[in-house]
């Protein structure tokens, strides 16, 4: 039945969106950056993962690991080469820093995209799924891999929640998103906190990219779409609200799946855009946002 198919597929896709969006929100909350190179980082992870598997012959798990590592490296590069220099630049007046960072990450994202397209062409790549086989959920034939993707995404989100809310290191991240000056007064170096945030983000985006490759496949031509989805979700959910991102991810994910199944696959990106427009006009702080 189509309805159940939508339910199942939608769940997995939304989970994947959620993972990416949570990372995006984390960076916004702690570093104040809307990273428009987000899609680029995800695709780098996907392609490196695919490359290690197909060209270097690594096993399914090792290639996933390499992919995530590549995502981490790409995130560091984004922060250290683009974001931080712009934030620290004295030639840019303070009010314009945000815009310059936005433009800078946009350019960096384009650079990543074109570099990947040049080296690897813009054909989509897929990674061998970590689990093979198909199960039947209430009559819907679902690849085991798809279930694993959803489970893994939620597992990681759960771990992240535990980290941020229950560990001391994680709480510094939370505190930084609330009151950076407060942290400085307590003897913390903010530069270290930012590095931690970007590290976590790199792993999250890398994992999201690798899972996307194993689930649906992705390529350098997708980078823009992935970034657009992530920031649509984050704005709809509320900039800085992690729970908002989760809710919005499911809203967007399900709407997209329904559109693809019930209307046409080409219309897929439309619902997210329309909801974004609605939210920005009617409730700019997002569904659960507080900033």
């Amino acid at each position, binding site marked *: 039945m189509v309805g159940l198919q939508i339910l199942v597929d939608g769940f997995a896709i939304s989970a994947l969106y959620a993972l990416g969006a949570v990372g995006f929100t984390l960076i916004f909350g702690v570093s104040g950056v809307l990273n428009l190179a987000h899609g680029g980082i995800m695709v780098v992870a996907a392609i490196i993962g695919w490359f290690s598997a197909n060209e270097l012959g690594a096993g399914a798990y090792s290639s996933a690991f390499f992919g995530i590592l590549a995502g981490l490296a790409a995130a560091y590069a984004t922060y250290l080469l683009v974001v931080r220099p712009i934030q620290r630049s004295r030639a840019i007046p303070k009010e314009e820093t945000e815009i310059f960072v936005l433009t800078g990450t946009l350019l960096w994202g384009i650079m990543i995209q074109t570099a990947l397209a040049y080296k690897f062409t813009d054909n989509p790549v897929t990674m061998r799924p970590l689990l093979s086989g198909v199960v039947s959920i209430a009559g819907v034939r679902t690849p085991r891999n798809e279930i694993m993707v959803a489970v893994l995404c939620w597992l990681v989100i759960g771990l992240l929640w535990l980290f941020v809310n229950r560990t001391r290191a994680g709480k510094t991240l939370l505190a930084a998103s609330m009151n950076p000056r407060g942290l400085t007064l*307590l*003897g913390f170096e903010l530069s270290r906190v930012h590095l931690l945030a970007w590290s976590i983000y790199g792993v999250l985006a890398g994992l999201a990219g690798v899972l996307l490759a194993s689930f649906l496949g992705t390529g350098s031509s997708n980078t823009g779409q992935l970034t657009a989805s992530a920031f649509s979700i984050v704005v709809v959910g509320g900039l800085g609200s992690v729970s908002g991102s989760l809710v919005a991810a499911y809203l967007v994910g399900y709407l997209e799946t329904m559109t693809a199944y019930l209307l046409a696959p080409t219309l897929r990106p439309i619902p997210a855009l329309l909801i974004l427009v609605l939210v920005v006009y009617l409730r700019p702080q997002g569904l659960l946002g507080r900033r």
Partner: protein
Amino acid sequence: MTGPVRLEVRGLTKRFGGLVAVKNLGFDIRAGEILGVIGPNGSGKSTVMKLIMGIERPNAGLVKLEGEDISRWPSHRIARAGIGIVFQHSRPLRRQTVLENIKLALLPDSLWRLAAHPEVDVNARSIAERVGLGAVMDQVPSALSFGDLRRMEMAKAIARHPKVVLLDEPFAGLAAVEVAAFSELIKRFRDEGRAVLLVDHNVKSVAALVDRVLVMCLGENIAEGKAEDVMSSEKVRHVYLGGKLEHVGRREETSNAQEHLLEVAGLGVHYGKAQALEKISLHVHEGEFVSVVGLNGAGKTSLFNAISGLVPYAGEINFRGQCLRSMTAGAVARNGVVQCPETRELFGDMTVRENLDLGGHHLPASSRARQLAWLFELFPVLEERQAQMSRTLSGGEQQMLAIARALMMQPGLLMLDEPTLGLAPVILQQLSSALEKLRKTVKTTILLGEQNVTFALPHADRIYVLEHARIVWEGTPQRFVAEMGAVYFDDTEAHPCADLQ
């Protein structure tokens, strides 16, 4: 000679969430009169200006300009109706010259006009001359002195001959010589028949300049009348000084007079062109309790922020013999100089316990537990409310949490910036006894910055008085009570400050 009533304010009320910034305020200003509004920090003075100018909308009440209700008009309409405002911080167009900035103020709000009327240029020049900017008309704001920048703001505000002029802290950041010149300028506005509303912390300069004074506290009008009458009222002195100044007993232990734990020499802090601190020198001995007393705008926060490494400064700051300049702000705190700022900077969405834990982050686990237990003994209410979100605590509880969190760091020097801000007298008692207990149990060195002298006096070993970016007095609490009882209200030119500079 005062003329007809220009501005009427009745029942003006403004709430920001749960905080009532202005409560049922009412007053009149006539043509040819200067009304000065004074009051401690947080009394709502700036909010009143914003409400009159339409930058904020009142929740209740009205504002009438020559009989017309303007309370819900947009700012630009109010401006065109005849009210000019000089904001606390200068807001020039950075890429335009002084003349062009003033011309802007003379332009009509037209969409289609490409060329300004030739009169605009002529008028702009004459206005520039009138406020004393004739020589710098063709310079850009970055080349101007602070005083001239403020003059330009005045020029913009009076360009279209407004009926009412609002001045938000016109004396802030000005050098002493400029204050006199600005007072003359403001007097001239009045003599031209305008109604002038002035808000400032510099009570002495305000008292000398204005015709009438209105004193605000916590959003309400608590006194109004002629300057001399208001200034000598007990009620008003209480609001500023916090209560009767009493003799205090000396501490039994004498501090080590040789070594200075904290040494500040020749400290200067500038924000852009505004001078916040000038040639400040002070020191604190180990185990001492030193109070730095001064009104808002005197420079206490700048002093603390400079020591903490949060703002750039000129001069020397040494702690335990080590120069603090090369350290990052985080490093300064880790090295034992911990500030509990005026704004408290708590993590609102975290619990009391989580805030404290973050304070003790750099301690080894065993000491952390011990420190926490000690602090819970010192502030039992914090133990009760461990699991509560700090945002939901009362003002007094938040202040105690902020202090406790700072103490978790086992500071060598604890700096407290205006801990009594916005707190009720009964809470102040609790805070005072907690500080007393603290000093008795552990040898903590404390540097306290306060406006409320009654709170600052009892525990202090020494007092510094900070006024307009300079230290104007230093001595023991006894001497303070004897000499400085009227420091904020009377002319204190004849004080032996020379040897302190």
